């Protein structure tokens, strides 16, 4: 798979896909999309990068071990649920806040934190499997 065309395109394709995955993640609350599908797109972006340029550059690029990324996602997900203890509502209740930044009203919620957690869990878990398989393929 190490053709010149693929190797030169892959980094751009990967960055586009990661950007798109974040877009899908953020639009997911009321429109089709969300953490899970966004995570899948990001994980396939990493897989493409790995196929084109080898696994070591991917591991360098994401800096953290994929399992640590997915653990952080799990932490965010569970933490978003625990936030509701401060509002004395049941676990996992969506909490909303509407700060105004630069004149734009921004809807932030614990649901978003949870969704980012799902995104990271999926990215970490799938990337961990994909990278392990690609590594095995090489030797």
């Amino acid at each position, binding site marked *: 798979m190490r053709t010149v065309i693929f190797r030169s395109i892959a980094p751009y394709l990967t960055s586009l896909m990661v950007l798109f995955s974040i877009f899908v993640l953020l639009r997911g609350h009321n429109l089709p999309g969300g953490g899970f599908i966004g995570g899948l797109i990001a994980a396939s972006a990493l897989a493409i990068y790995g196929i084109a340029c080898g696994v070591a550059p991917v591991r360098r690029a994401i800096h953290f071990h994929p399992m*640590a990324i997915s*653990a952080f996602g799990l*932490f965010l997900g569970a933490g978003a*649920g625990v936030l509701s203890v401060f509002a004395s509502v049941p*676990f996992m209740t969506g909490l909303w806040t509407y700060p105004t930044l630069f004149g734009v009203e921004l*809807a932030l919620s614990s649901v978003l934190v949870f969704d980012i957690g799902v995104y990271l869990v999926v990215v970490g878990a799938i990337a961990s499997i994909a990278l392990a398989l690609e590594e095995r393929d090489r030797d």
Partner: protein
Amino acid sequence: MAGKTAGLEDLSVAYVTEPVAAADWLIVAPVALCLLVGSVLLMLRKDTRLQPLIAIPALMVLSAMTLGLLWHVLANGTVTMTMGRWLPPFGISFTVDPLSAFFAATSSLVALAAGVYGRSDIDHSGRRYGFYPFLLLIMAGVIGAFLTGDVFNLYVWFEVLLISSFGLLVLGSERGQLDGGVKYAFLNLVATTLFLIATGYLYGLFGTLNMADIAVKASELRGTAPLMTLVTLFLLAFAMKAAAFPVNFWLPASYHTPRLVVSALFAGLLTKVGIYALLRVLGMLFPIEREELSFIIAIAAALTMVLGVMGALAQNDIRRALGFLVVSGIGVMMAGLALGSPAGFSGAIFYAAHSMVVMTALYFAIGIGVSLGGNFRLSEAGGLYARNAMLAFVTLMLFLSVSGLPPFSGFWPKVMLVKASLDIGAWWLAAAILVTGLLTTITVGRIWALAYWRPAGEGAASAAAGSAPGSAAGSAPAGAIAALFGLVALSVAAGVWPEPVLVLSQDAARGLIDPSAYVLSVFPGEAAQ
């Protein structure tokens, strides 16, 4: 975006509007704690020194939480929290009755013991593989399964504990472990698939997955819906999880391969989650269908206990023998399920709690024995009594407990079950329990006589044993001894002073037979109808 709810006047049609009392947070706190600490440990996987320092205090907090939850439930009756504030049956409820709280508390104490024991049993490479994160995550699954009040959510927690158990099973990736792991994974996936099919079928019939809702609607649907098929599917799926005959073969094939503390944890907790699900779904939700199936369950129970112990009698590897004893104990609990009377259920519940503690402790005792210079193979073992009389004595206590002799914790539930089966004239079931007790005594007596009482060096292959790894006489780590003694103390306390446990299991059994408190806790308005 549409988060503002200005257009909706009356939130109480969709939301639980009462604020949550602080004590009710105990319902969800154990699971949240396990997930949070498990994920932190996973992030710190490389720091093997720090792992037990975080995990063991967290397991202590977990035990405190579940004991607090048990106290809360006993003081205030069944409690419910519905996730995300949505009104049940649309939100997923966690409903904790005495049965859930009792099992959650017992299992978290067992997990604490396993965490302490694991400090010495799991080396640094095992910790890098993630023993402690998996331990916390498997506890999230086990406790979630005990606490949830939703059938699909129960399935999810089964998956959580199953995935963590795969990780624990192949810790170290040795050949035998992978072999055992494949058998375990495949047969458990079959069981999980059956469970999922049954859950889909249940949803198709009832249009709800909330257990309290199902308990209410079952009587209306009984005339028209094919509930028998549904319940038989659930029985098969959960019996497979619980390792009941004839679907028990995955357990003896895999439980002797992983690290000892992992075997101990699995033997203590995993099959009991299957028993819990059987009690909850068959015992509480579908009592009429359970009654119809009770003869089949009773036969499966009798065969499980007798064939299980006969399997144990035939083994040369002590760990394999213990695996078969776990199966045999499942048969005793199934007998309680088959009886279906208050005495039967409470006997099964008491026995399940006893089995969680004692089976784990037995694996610990055998593991400490091996680290003192014993051997897993009976033909080569010997001389442990001479090396450490205290350990031999404690192990003998556990052996007597598992065979159901007084004054240890295995005695009382067996008495209850024998009496309950004689009460309804099922003499053959009572006979099966008693014969199992006798055979278990012979099995454990054989192990004790060969591995402990027999002087070292008289074994058939003692010359070979001299060079085998692990046969060098070492000293047992203090943490492992403490974990063992803690569990033995629980077993002895429940045997000598069974009254609180008896009352608790009778309470739990009452909650299963008459689910009105359970339903009322989820649907406070239902009382008027």
